[in-house]
C-alpha cells in the first residue's frame, strides 16, 4: 500500500514537472508567446594607432505560437584607421604605392609600416527560422548576406536537433554554405608581383600600364562549406556541458589583396615589396568543449577550443565568463580569454633577396605565431517591464611572435612583432 502510494505520488510529481518543464523548454526556445524580443547594441573597437571600428547591431525575435520563431539580425559597421601591411620596419622612411595604385603613403624610420587607406562600411543582414516539430525534434534554416565596398558574402544554413534521455541530452547537426565575391580596390594583385612607383615612370600612362601588369582583371570568389556536430548534456542540477566538432572547407581566393612582403638583402635592407600569395584551399577542424554552471548568486562558464587546419595553423583558446548578482536586478561579469596560435606553414615575416620565391608566402601577423588575451568587465541592470541595459568594457592585446626566422642585419634593431592593444566598449539594450 505504502509502495503504491509512493509510486503514485512520484508519477503525479513527474507528470506535473513534465508539464512545467515543457513550458520552461518552450519558454527557452520561444521567449514569450506571440511576443517580440529586441536586442540592440553599439560597440566601439579601437586599436592603439591602428584600426577603429564602430559596430551597431540589432536583433529582433518574433515568436509564432510556441512552435515557431523568427530571428532577424542587422549589423552595420564602419572601419577606419591603419592596418599592418606586412612590410618590415627599416632604418629609413619607406614609401608605398596605395593598393588602388593612386597615390602613395610614407612610413617613418623605425616604424611598423601601416597602410592608412583602410576604411570601409559593411552592412550585414541575416534571418533564421526555428521550428519545433515535436517534443524531440527541432529544426532551423537561415540566410545571411554581408556587403562592403570590396566584398560580398551570401550564405545559407540549416540545422537539426534531437533531444532524448528525458531531454538531458541534445544532439545537433548543422551546416552552412557561404559564397563570397572579392573585388579589391585596385584589383587583385598578381601573386608575388613587385610594387611599382609612379616616380619610376615618365608618364601616367606608362605607370598605369606597369601597375596593371601587377593586377588580375575582374573579381574572384570563395566558397565555404561548414558542418558541425554537437552534443549538449545536462550533468546534474546545476551544470551542463557542450561539445562540438566542426569541419570547414574553404576554396577560392584567400590571399589578402592589401598585404605585402618586404624583400630584404643580407643586411636586412629592403630592396622591394611583393604582394602576398596564399593557397586556394583550406580544410579546418575545430573541437570545442564548454561547461556552464548555475550558482546561487550567479552563473559561470569555462570553455576550451582546439583548432587545426591544413595550413598548419593550430590554436588553443581558453575562455571563461563569471557573473555575480549584487542584487536581483544588478550584476557584474568578468570575462577572461587566452588565445595561442601557431603560424601557418607559409607565414614568413619577409622574403630574402636571391632566394627562390616560395609557392605561397604571407607576412600577415594574424596567421603568424601569436598569443592574445582579453580581460573584460560587464555590468547589467535589469529594468522594469523586463528591459535590460548592459555596459561592457574589455581590453584585448595581441602579442605576435617570431616564428623562428633569423633576422639579418638591421632588422635586429626593430620590433618586427609589435603588440596590438585594443579597447572594446559596448552598450546594449534589450526589451
Amino acid at each position: 500500500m505504502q509502495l503504491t502510494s509512493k509510486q503514485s505520488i512520484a508519477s503525479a510529481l513527474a507528470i506535473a514537472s513534465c508539464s512545467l518543464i515543457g513550458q520552461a523548454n518552450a519558454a527557452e526556445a520561444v521567449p514569450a508567446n506571440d511576443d517580440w524580443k529586441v536586442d540592440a547594441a553599439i560597440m566601439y573597437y579601437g586599436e592603439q594607432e591602428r584600426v577603429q571600428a564602430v559596430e551597431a547591431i540589432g536583433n529582433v525575435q518574433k515568436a509564432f505560437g510556441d512552435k515557431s520563431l523568427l530571428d532577424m539580425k542587422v549589423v552595420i559597421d564602419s572601419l577606419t584607421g591603419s592596418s599592418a601591411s606586412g612590410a618590415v620596419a627599416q632604418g629609413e622612411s619607406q614609401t608605398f604605392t596605395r593598393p588602388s595604385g593612386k597615390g602613395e603613403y610614407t612610413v617613418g624610420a623605425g616604424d611598423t609600416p601601416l597602410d592608412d587607406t583602410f576604411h570601409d562600411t559593411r552592412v550585414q543582414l541575416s534571418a533564421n527560422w526555428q521550428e519545433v516539430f515535436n517534443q524531440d525534434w527541432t529544426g532551423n534554416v537561415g540566410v545571411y548576406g554581408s556587403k562592403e565596398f570590396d566584398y560580398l558574402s551570401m550564405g545559407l544554413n540549416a540545422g537539426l536537433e534531437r533531444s532524448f534521455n528525458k531531454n538531458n541530452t541534445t544532439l545537433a547537426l548543422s551546416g552552412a554554405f557561404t559564397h563570397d565575391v572579392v573585388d579589391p580596390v585596385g584589383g587583385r594583385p598578381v601573386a608575388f608581383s613587385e610594387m611599382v612607383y609612379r616616380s619610376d615612370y615618365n608618364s601616367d600612362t606608362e605607370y598605369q600600364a606597369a601597375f596593371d601588369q601587377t593586377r588580375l582583371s575582374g573579381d574572384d570568389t570563395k566558397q565555404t562549406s561548414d558542418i558541425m556536430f554537437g552534443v549538449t548534456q545536462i550533468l546534474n542540477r546545476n551544470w551542463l556541458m557542450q561539445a562540438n566538432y566542426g569541419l570547414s572547407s574553404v576554396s577560392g581566393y584567400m590571399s589578402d589583396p592589401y598585404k605585402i612582403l618586404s624583400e630584404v638583402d643580407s643586411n636586412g635592407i629592403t630592396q622591394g615589396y611583393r604582394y602576398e600569395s596564399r593557397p586556394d584551399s583550406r580544410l579546418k577542424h575545430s573541437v570545442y568543449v564548454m561547461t556552464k554552471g548555475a550558482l546561487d548568486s550567479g552563473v559561470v562558464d569555462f570553455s576550451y577550443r582546439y583548432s587545426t587546419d591544413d595550413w598548419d595553423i593550430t590554436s588553443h583558446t581558453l575562455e571563461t565568463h563569471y557573473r555575480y548578482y549584487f542584487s536581483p536586478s544588478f550584476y557584474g561579469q568578468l570575462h577572461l580569454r587566452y588565445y595561442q596560435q601557431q603560424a601557418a606553414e607559409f607565414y614568413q615575416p619577409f622574403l630574402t633577396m636571391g632566394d627562390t620565391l616560395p609557392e605561397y608566402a604571407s607576412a600577415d601577423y594574424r596567421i603568424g605565431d601569436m598569443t592574445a588575451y582579453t580581460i573584460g568587465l560587464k555590468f547589467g541592470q535589469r529594468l522594469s517591464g523586463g528591459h535590460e541595459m548592459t555596459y561592457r568594457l574589455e581590453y584585448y592585446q595581441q602579442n605576435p611572435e617570431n616564428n623562428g626566422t633569423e633576422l639579418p642585419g638591421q632588422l635586429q634593431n626593430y620590433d618586427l612583432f609589435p603588440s596590438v592593444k585594443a579597447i572594446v566598449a559596448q552598450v546594449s539594450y534589450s526589451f
Partner: protein
Amino acid sequence: MTNVFKPIGKTVVALAIASSIVGCSSLGVQPWEKDQFAREDMALNSEKLDLSLDDHIYFSKEGTSGGRSLAGGGCGCN
C-alpha cells in the same frame, strides 16, 4: 608552448568524446530537477549579441575562428 598544449588538447578531446558517449545513459537529472536550466542566464545563447560581436572581432584579428557555433558568414575583414 604548442608542445605543452598538444597533450592537453588531445586529453580534452578524448574526454569530450568519452563523456558524450557515456553521458547519454548515466548523466542527467529528473524533469522536476531542471529548475536551474530554465533560468534565462543559463541558456546557451543568453548573451548572443556579445558572443556574435566577439566572434566578429576574433575572426577578423586571428587565424582561426568558429568552434562554439558555425564560423558563419564571411566578410572581407580578415
